[in-house]
């Protein structure tokens, strides 16, 4: 179990670094899927199989599918790699590295072992629908608001001049949808 954790953690870090360095958008998203799968394995080794399954289903499944659909809809494949020159962000990078080193040092001062055994779906569900039931209701309201908001934002308003993207399939579809509504 311990070896599984470290291998999955190394894969997660490596894949995440590749996400932010690839200039091809689709390649970056594929590495992000790999990173999310690795984090799912980490969850499993930490004794949280329910969250590991949700990570694969919701993050690597639903959310990444949204990303891939957006990339296909917007027809962007390879634009804007590292636009800011290296000399501009070498300073922030060094400062962030120092902060991260401090954080790792601070965390590493104590050595706590994790509790043995796993917390299964039953315990999580009992907590979720027991003391946290108000949070579940609020999450459902949040998701509904996001759904309505996304539809409102993405719909083409009638009076807006469709600038420069008349031939786009997404544009014409959204425009027809907004026009007839």
């Amino acid at each position, binding site marked *: 179990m311990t070896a599984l954790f470290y291998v999955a953690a190394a894969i997660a870090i490596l894949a995440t670094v590749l996400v932010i360095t690839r200039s091809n958008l689709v390649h970056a998203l594929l590495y992000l899927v790999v990173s999310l799968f690795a984090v799912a394995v980490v*969850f499993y080794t930490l004794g949280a199989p329910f969250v590991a399954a949700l990570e694969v289903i919701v*993050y690597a499944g639903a959310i990444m599918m949204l990303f891939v659909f957006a990339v296909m809809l917007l027809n*962007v494949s390879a634009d804007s790699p590292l636009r800011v020159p290296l000399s501009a962000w070498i300073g922030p990078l060094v400062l962030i590295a120092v902060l991260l080193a401090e954080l790792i040092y601070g965390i590493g001062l104590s050595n706590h072992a994790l509790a043995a055994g796993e917390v299964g779906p039953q315990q999580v569900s009992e907590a979720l629908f027991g003391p946290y039931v108000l949070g579940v209701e609020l999450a459902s309201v949040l998701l509904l608001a*996001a759904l309505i908001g996304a539809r409102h934002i993405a719909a083409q308003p009638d009076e807006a001049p469709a600038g420069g993207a008349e031939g786009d399939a997404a544009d014409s579809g959204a425009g027809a949808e907004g026009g007839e509504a």
Partner: protein
Amino acid sequence: MAAVSLDHGLILAAILFVVGFVGLLTRRNLIVALACIEIMLNAAGLAFVVAGARWGSPDGQVMFLFVLAMAAAEVAVGLALAIRFRQSLGRLDLDDADEMKG
């Protein structure tokens, strides 16, 4: 079973968060910026799960579920914004959105 120490899990979460943050600072593509926010939210959720596993309590996993719902809502609105961004500005470069105009 789980002989992983709490510190290593938290360090993994910190590293993933910082990598996502560096990506958010350095990349100017809107889709990549949204993906970096996803990485950071995922790292925060990982910290919750690790802390919950420290005491064998389900609270950390419950918090991860809330983070998951928030990330899904955020990415739905963010990608809708990306569609509007592309329609009005023609590209997905965040530097293009430097003036406030309807």
